[in-house]
């Protein structure tokens, strides 16, 4: 039989653990209650002082003293909280105050820390305050993806040639786990990326090009036309599909001519993208070719062709009505479904 003493010892240990857990649970509750109240009070004071500093545009000694007297974490919370509502000169004043009060220096020190969590924190503070600091630029090559992603977020508000170049390099990095953040940041930089991105697309034909094409689609500058046309012929299906979408965003006769060719691409994803792009351009001249795609063997192509015909207006609707009476049951069904769609659902 198991010795009763052994059981008692085990049970004592368990009771000890339980008592510890319960004490921590309730004491943490009390601590949480007290610190939340204290923090709310301090953040309120800091918020008021900082708001006065930012709105007056000059350093008021009393407010500066109040802010300096706050614990570092409260200072950070106050600055980050108010930074979300500011831009332009307001943000500049906030940065000035942050510089004077040492918030930026502390964030810079965090960016150099050996632990990634601290570097992430530093990058977040500098990002949210839009501080143009070369230190964050270096973090684009950080070993941790979360830090790289945060640095990319910072880059969105620093659209210099150097920053854009560093970001484009990341698009070509097959190992990057923060590609979304990079693409998103490039997209938010707007037209400033058109020239370097066009140059990047001229020299790439792989997955990096696909990522670049997706960004280019949102900018839709005619400067991408040559690259989009070139990339629409490459072997990689994803690249061709992205090129078709970009051509639809750029529009124009050259783009339309290539897109009509792409309706005959061997890959259904590319054919569907080409049909959708022609619809996006409202290119009514492609009506008969799109109507032909209503008979495509793949559902996805038929659907996109139908939606494109609906998008190009009266001419397209005529083709859809004609398909209803045609001999191809699949084309007729798709035409009927597209014609049935309420206006809101045609996008």
């Amino acid at each position, binding site marked *: 039989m198991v010795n*009763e003493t052994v059981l008692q010892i085990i049970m004592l240990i368990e009771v000890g653990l339980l008592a510890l857990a319960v004490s921590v649970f309730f004491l943490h509750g009390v601590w949480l209650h007290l610190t939340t109240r204290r923090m709310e009070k301090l953040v309120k004071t800091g918020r008021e002082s900082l708001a006065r500093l930012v709105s007056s545009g000059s350093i008021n000694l009393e407010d500066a003293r109040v802010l300096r007297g706050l614990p570092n974490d409260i200072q950070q919370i106050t600055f980050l909280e108010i930074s979300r509502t500011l831009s332009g000169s307001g943000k500049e004043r906030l940065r000035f105050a942050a510089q004077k009060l040492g918030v930026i220096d502390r964030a810079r020190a965090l960016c150099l820390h050996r632990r990634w969590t601290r570097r992430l924190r530093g990058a977040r503070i500098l990002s949210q305050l839009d501080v143009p600091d070369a230190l964050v630029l270096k973090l684009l090559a950080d070993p941790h993806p979360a830090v790289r992603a945060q640095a990319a977020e910072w880059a969105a508000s620093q659209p210099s040639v150097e920053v854009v170049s560093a970001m484009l390099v990341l698009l070509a990095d097959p190992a990057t786990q*923060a590609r979304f953040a990079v693409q998103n940041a490039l997209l938010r930089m707007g037209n400033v990326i058109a020239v370097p991105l066009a140059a990047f697309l001229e020299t790439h034909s792989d997955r990096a090009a696909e990522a670049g094409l997706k960004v280019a689609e949102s900018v839709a500058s005619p400067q991408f036309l040559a690259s989009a046309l070139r990339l629409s012929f490459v072997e990689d299906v994803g690249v061709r599909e992205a090129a078709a979408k970009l051509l639809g965003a750029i529009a124009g006769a050259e783009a339309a001519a290539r897109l009509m060719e792409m309706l005959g691409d061997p890959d259904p994803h590319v054919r569907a993208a080409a049909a959708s792009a022609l619809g996006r351009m409202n290119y009514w001249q492609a009506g008969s070719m799109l109507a032909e795609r209503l008979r495509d063997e793949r559902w996805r192509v038929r659907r996109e062709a139908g939606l494109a015909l609906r998008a190009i207006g009266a001419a397209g609707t005529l083709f859809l009505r004609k398909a209803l009476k045609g001999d191809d049951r699949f084309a007729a069904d798709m035409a009927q479904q597209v014609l049935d769609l309420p206006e809101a659902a045609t996008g």
Partner: protein
Amino acid sequence: MNDMLASFVTQFLVKGQFAVLLYFLAVNGWYLVLLVSSLLELRRHMLLIADESRHLLLSSTLSPTISILAPAYNEEATIEVSLRALLALHYPNLEVIVISDGSKDRTVQVLIEKFGLVAVKTIYERNIETKPVRSLYRSSTYPGLVVVDKENGGKADALNVGLSFARGELVCAMDADTLIEADGLQRMVRPFLYATDVVATGGTIRVVNGSLVKHGRVEKTAVPTNFLAGIQVVEYLRAFLFGRLGWNRLGGNIIISGAFGLFQREAVLKAGGYLHDTVGEDMELVVRLKRLSYERGGPGKIAFVPDPVAWTEVPESAKVLGRQRDRWHRGLADVLWRHRRMLFNPRYGVTGLFVYPYYAFVELLAPLIEAVGLFALVLGLVFGVVDWTFAGLFYLTAYGLGTALTAFTLILEDLSFHRYNSFRDRALLFWWALLENMGYRQLTVYWRLRGLWKFLRGRKDWGAMERKGFRPITAPS
């Protein structure tokens, strides 16, 4: 005769009690490892999300499109509120597909009236064999809303139909009664953005009973005072915050709650969608995706997001809860049996060598071993082989560590998201954690054994789930 029986019981107890006690200690020891693992993972996660700018996702055209698949069966009373809450989720590229699974009430009519639905030609790309679709509707006011009315075929069938209609890169499978947090999708999509090998993500599901719900959103959290619901709050916290989170760090997650999960659509279609002939279709799909990633290559990481992303109503009657637990255990047994070739198979890496054996020998067999232990203890008392003091000590020792671990889970919750803030809630949580082992756990042992028995007999029925629905519930102040 009695002497012989007593001698047998003595022998059985002498040999069996060591085994049972060792089993309890080993299992709880492993739980301790999971607890430490989840603590580390939670700390990492909290550092990762502190002050992050998720709003950037909202303005990006690059955010992946998510198709929410919401199966509905006789949801006439709640469908409008539930759907409005879904359409108001904070996510930019969203499509909501409601699949009425042969509802016999006015579910479809309510949708037509309230959401401006227009019937369109019922054709679709039939990727997976399903029950026939009766009609298809699109909304004249909500571009991303699709309503499918189909013949009854069960949840798996409804989800498969939804998969055929979905256009998003990611699909979100949910229960009709799940309440999703407004920014839940933003939180769930995060692993897909930062890693290319993620095939599915799951998040923490919380118990909504007792909380204040308005317009399909949880406005005020509170721990329920109902015995069964209260204990399930603790159970859910433990299952998600230290179970799945702990496994997440060890790379061994194979469960995503059917109430709310996000999947790569292409991967699910390639895997053949949800299986019809199982009651554990959600776990089965995840295990199949994981298994196929080893066999065919491709993404296979199952990521768990500890953020509370969704809320579900749990049963408050023993009858309904029993049916649910019985079904869950049958589902577990069925999934483990279907994919038995993974057991101890090094080809399936961590999943085959550690996770699968854990689910087979701990999760599946635990009720059996626990029942044997309890039975032996009762026999011992009846035949006078053990005295009451010893029996009490044995019982408390066996369950003591589990209670302590549950209490540590409460600390995890408190250190991270602390949704239960009032003293009343804390006291109630602790109270339910203490009470869990005094009757409730033994009931679940019975229900799970019943599930195991039904599995062996080949039963695959679901049993009805009765819900009160999300009427505004007044939370205690």
